[in-house]
C-alpha cells in the first residue's frame, strides 16, 4: 500500500496540461510554400552503458494549445491516429511491425507539447526509428482509423467521470483558466471531436512537423556520434519551419471562487486549490519552488503534516508547481471524507494565508534547498529520467543548461528573496478551487464556510469552462440548485457503495 499520496502522476500530467500560454496565430507560415525537406530536428542524447535498452522520446511543440478553437482534441486525435497507419502500412501492419520489435509506442499530450515514446532493445533501434519516422512524417490518417480514435476519445470523456481525482484536476484547469485558451479541454468535447475533418488534420500535421518544432531524444546504451548518425539517416527528412511559440496569457483571477461537481454517491471529496503565478523562466520561479517544498512538496511539508499526520483527514495532502513560458499554476490538493472536507479546506487556506503572512524560517529554507538538490540528483539516476528532465526544460523554454545548473541556482537563492516572493506571489485572495463530491453533503457547509469562496455548482457532465465568469459570493447567491445526472435522478436509487455514515 502506498502511504503517501501527495504526488500524483495524473495530477502532474493534467496540471501540466492546464498550464501553458494561449494559442498563437502564426503569421505567414513558411511551410505554406512547400518548404524544402531534409532537415534534422534537434537531438538530445543521454548515455548509460546498461541495460541494453534505448528510450526514444520525440517532443513535438504545440500540444493541445495547437488545437484551433472549436477543434479541441485535434492534436490528441491526430497523433493517436498517426500511430494507426503510416508509410504504406495499415493499422494491422504497423502494429505488427512495432510488435515484432517488442515496442509498444505511446503518445502523451499536454498543453505545450506532444511526446511520442517507445522503449526498444538496442539491436532493434534502427528499425524502430524507421517506423517512428513514418508515423511522424507519413501518417495516412485512414478514415476508418480516424473514426475509431474519435470514438475512443468520446468514450474517454465519459470514463473521466469514473476517476474523481482526475476529474477534479481536469476541472481546476478548465475553471481557473476559463475564457482563455488554457481553459479549453485537451481531450476535446463531443462537439469539437465531431468537427475534426481530414482537411483540418492535414493542415495541423503540416505545422506540427516543422523541423524546428521537433526534438528527438535518445536515452540509454548509445553514444552521441552513433545517435547522430542514426537520426540523420532515419529522421533527417523534416520540412523547415518554425517552432510553436505560445504567447503568455492570463485569466481573470480576482476573488476566491469554488466549483462543486456533484457526485452524489461518493464518500470522499476530491479537493484541488489553485493559483496562477509566474512562469518557469521567471526570476521568482526557483524561490517559488523552494516555498513549495515547505508548503506541500515532501511528506513532512506543512500541508501533509497538518491535514494527514496530525488530523488523519486525508490519505495525502500535496502541492505542486507546473510551469510554462507564460505563467504557471500552483496547486494543492487532498481527499477528505465529506464530513471533514470543509474543515480541511479552511485549514489549507489558513496554512496558505499564514505562509504568506509569516513566510518561511531560515531553517526551512535550508531544508528546502537540501531536499530539492538531493531529489534533483536522485532524479537523474536513469537515462530516461534525465532525458525527460532535459526535454521538459526544452518544452518550457528554459535555458539549455537548466538541468546542469539547477543545484547552483537553488543554492544561490537568499532568504530575503524568499520572503519577498512569498508576499508577492502567494495571492491567496485569488484562490480557485474545485471539489468533486456529494453536493448534498457539502454545498451548505461550503456556502457557509469561513474560507469565503464564491460557490458554483455543476453536474459531472457539465463544462467547468462554461460556468459564470465569476462565482457568486455566498451571501449574494440564491439557494444552490444541483443539476442531476440521468443516472442519479433518484436519490434513493441507483447504485454505488454504501455511504459512509456520519460519525460522532
Amino acid at each position, binding site marked *: *500500500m*502506498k*502511504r*503517501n*499520496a501527495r*504526488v500524483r*502522476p495524473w495530477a*502532474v500530467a493534467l496540471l501540466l496540461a492546464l498550464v501553458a500560454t494561449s494559442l498563437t496565430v502564426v503569421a505567414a507560415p513558411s511551410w505554406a510554400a512547400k518548404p524544402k525537406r531534409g532537415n534534422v530536428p534537434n537531438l538530445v542524447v543521454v548515455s548509460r552503458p*546498461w541495460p541494453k535498452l534505448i528510450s526514444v522520446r520525440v517532443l513535438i511543440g504545440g500540444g493541445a494549445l495547437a488545437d484551433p478553437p472549436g477543434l479541441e482534441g485535434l492534436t490528441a486525435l491526430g497523433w493517436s491516429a498517426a500511430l494507426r497507419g503510416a508509410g504504406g502500412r495499415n493499422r494491422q501492419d504497423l*502494429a*505488427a511491425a512495432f510488435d*515484432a520489435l*517488442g*515496442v*509498444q509506442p505511446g503518445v502523451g499530450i499536454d498543453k505545450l507539447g506532444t511526446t511520442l515514446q517507445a*522503449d526498444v532493445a538496442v539491436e532493434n533501434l534502427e528499425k524502430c526509428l524507421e517506423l517512428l519516422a513514418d508515423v511522424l512524417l507519413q501518417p495516412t490518417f485512414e478514415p476508418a482509423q480516424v473514426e*475509431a480514435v474519435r470514438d*475512443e476519445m468520446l*468514450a474517454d470523456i465519459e470514463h*473521466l467521470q*469514473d*476517476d*474523481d481525482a482526475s476529474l477534479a484536476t481536469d476541472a481546476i484547469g478548465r475553471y481557473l483558466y476559463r475564457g482563455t485558451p488554457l481553459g479549453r479541454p485537451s481531450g476535446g468535447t463531443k462537439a469539437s471531436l465531431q468537427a475534426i475533418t481530414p482537411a483540418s488534420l492535414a493542415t495541423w500535421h503540416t505545422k506540427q512537423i516543422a523541423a524546428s518544432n521537433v526534438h528527438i531524444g535518445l536515452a540509454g546504451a548509445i553514444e552521441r556520434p552513433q545517435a547522430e548518425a542514426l537520426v540523420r539517416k532515419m529522421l533527417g527528412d523534416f520540412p523547415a519551419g518554425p517552432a510553436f511559440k505560445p504567447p503568455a496569457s492570463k485569466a481573470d483571477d480576482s476573488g476566491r471562487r469554488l466549483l462543486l461537481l456533484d457526485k452524489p*454517491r461518493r*464518500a*470522499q471529496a476530491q479537493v484541488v486549490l489553485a493559483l496562477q503565478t509566474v512562469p*518557469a523562466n521567471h526570476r521568482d*520561479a*526557483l524561490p517559488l519552488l523552494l516555498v513549495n517544498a515547505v508548503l506541500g*512538496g*515532501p*511528506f*513532512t511539508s506543512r500541508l501533509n503534516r497538518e491535514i494527514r*499526520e*496530525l488530523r*488523519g*483527514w*486525508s490519505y495525502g495532502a500535496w502541492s*505542486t508547481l*507546473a510551469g510554462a513560458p507564460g505563467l504557471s499554476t500552483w496547486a494543492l490538493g487532498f*481527499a*477528505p471524507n465529506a464530513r471533514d472536507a470543509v474543515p480541511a479546506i479552511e485549514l489549507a487556506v489558513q496554512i496558505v494565508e499564514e505562509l504568506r503572512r509569516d513566510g518561511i524560517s531560515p531553517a526551512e529554507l535550508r*531544508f528546502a534547498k537540501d*531536499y*530539492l538538490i*538531493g*531529489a*534533483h*540528483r*536522485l532524479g537523474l*539516476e536513469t537515462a*530516461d529520467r534525465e532525458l525527460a528532465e532535459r526535454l*521538459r526544460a526544452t518544452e518550457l523554454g528554459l535555458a539549455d543548461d537548466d538541468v546542469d545548473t539547477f543545484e547552483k541556482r537553488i543554492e544561490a537563492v537568499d532568504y530575503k528573496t524568499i520572503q519577498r516572493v512569498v508576499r508577492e506571489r502567494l495571492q491567496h485572495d485569488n484562490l480557485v478551487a474545485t471539489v468533486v463530491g456529494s453536493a448534498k453533503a457539502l454545498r451548505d457547509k461550503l456556502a457557509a464556510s469561513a474560507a469565503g469562496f464564491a460557490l458554483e455548482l455543476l453536474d459531472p457532465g457539465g463544462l467547468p469552462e462554461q460556468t459564470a465568469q465569476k462565482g457568486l459570493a455566498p451571501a449574494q447567491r440564491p439557494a444552490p440548485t444541483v443539476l442531476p445526472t440521468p443516472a442519479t435522478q*433518484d436519490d*434513493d*436509487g*441507483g*447504485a*454505488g*457503495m454504501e455511504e459512509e455514515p456520519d460519525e460522532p
Partner: protein
Amino acid sequence: MTWAPAAAGCGQRYRWPAAGLFVCAALIRAAGAPAEEPTMAVVQQGQERAKLLKERGVTGVEFLDASPFGPAGVERWRLANGLQLLLAPDPMSPVVAVHTWVKVGSADEVAGKTGLAHLLEHAMFKSTATRPAGTFDRALEQHGASANAATWFDWTMYHEVVPPSQVALVFELEADRLAHLDLSAHAVRSELEVVRNERREEVDDDPDALVVEALWSAAFGKEAYGHPVIGTSADLAGLQVGDVVDFYRARYVPENTAVVVTGGFDPAQVLTDAAKWYGGLAARPAPKRSDKPASEKPTNSSSLVVDASSGRLAVAWRTVPMAHADHPALALLAEVLAGSDSSRLYRQMVEQSRVASSISASQTDLRLGGLLEIYATLRPGKTAAEAEALLLPVLADLLGANPVSQTELDAARNRLKTQHLRELASADGRADVLGRTWANGLDLGVHQRWWQAIDKATPAEVQNAASKWLKSDLRTVLRADPPVRTSRARGRTTPSRGHAGRAG
C-alpha cells in the same frame, strides 16, 4: 528535480497492490535477468568478500550464495540473528536503493482482522523510543530522498532511494523501527483514520478497484487471498491497538526480514554497516506460515453494480506460482491475449466489436498460487454480458481452431524482454525484483531459469498451458454494470453459487 516537481516525484507514488493490475504486471516482468555472468564467478566473488570481511574483523555475517543478476550479480548473506541481506552492486549507479522486505502480508491475517498488515505498515512511519514522529522522513528528505512502503498478500516492503553516502543512515533508521517502534494508541488511531480515508478514496469511490476486489473475492472466497489487502471497512473499524502491537511483535523478527541493497555501493562497507546496525536485533523465531496451496473452488460468476460511466468485465483463472513449470508459458499467454494492439482480445473487443474501450491481461504471482486476470473497460451503453459473449469465444478459438502462432509468441517474448529491461534500469526496480523473489520463498536462480524458459518457449508449450489452466472450473467471471435508472440496488455482489463476494 527541476521546475516541475512532477518528474522526480511521480515514481514515488504507490498504487496499493490490491489494485492488481499494477503489481501483477510488475511481477511478471520482474521475473529475471539475462545470464550475463557465469554463476561460478559471482559465487567466487562473494566468497572472496567473506574472506575480506574476516580479515577486517567483521563478524556475524555469513555468505550464503550468489547468482547472475543485473550488471554485476547478486549475493545473499545472513546475519547471526537470521536477517538476510541481498546485495546487487552496480558501480556505475549514482544512487542506492535500500528495501526492507518482511514475510508477512494480508494472507497472514485472521478473519475479522483484515487490514492489519497494511495498518502496521503505516504505523511503522510513526515514532520510535528515541525518534519522535516525523524525524524518520525528515532525516531522509534532507538528502532529497523519500520513504514509502507497500503491502501485498504475501509480503510487506519498505523502500528508500538515497545517495551512496547515506546507506548507513537508512540502516540506522530501519533497524531502529524494526526493534523500537512506539505503537501508542494515538499513533495507531491516527493512522487508522488515514487508512480508512485511503480505502474510501482508493477503493470505495473507484469503480475499477471495486471490480478487482470483487473478482479476487470471488476467485479465492474465504481463503487467504480472498479478502482485500487494505481490509474491509467493517474490519478496519474494529481493529484495536493491541492487534497491531501483537502483529508487530510476532511478525517483525529478523528471521522474517531481508534487506535488499542495489546500486552504487561498496559491498564490504555495506556488510560492515549492516552488521553494526542490524546485528543487534534480537533473534526470535518466526511464526510458521501456511504452505497449503489455495484449494477452494472459485465462484464461477458474480455480478456487481458500480457507480460508473460504463460497465466492466473481469475474468480470472486460478493458476500457479512463479516457480511452477507452467508459469513462463502463462505469462506469455497473457501477452498473447491482450499485451498489445495486435493481440487477440484487443482486436476483437476494442477494434472490431467496439464493445470495450480498453483491455488488459496479466498473470499475477502469489506465494501459494497465481491468478491470470483479464479486465475490460466497456464502452458506455455496452453491458458486461455482451462483452462476455464476445470474449469467451476468443478464448475458445485459441484453445481450438486457432492456436498460438510463432509470430504471436515472438512478439509476446520481445515485449516481455523490453519491459523487463525497463524495470532493471533503476536500482529501485532491481531491488523490487529481488525482494519479491525472496519474500515468495524462491531461490535467486529462479530468474535465470524463468528467462531461459521464456527464451525457449514454443507455441505448443503456451498452448498446453492454456489448455491446462483456462478451464471453466478454475474460472471466475465478474460482470459489473452501472445501475439502471430505477434500480434500488446498492453495492451488492451477487454470486451465482458458493460464498458471497464483497464490494467493500
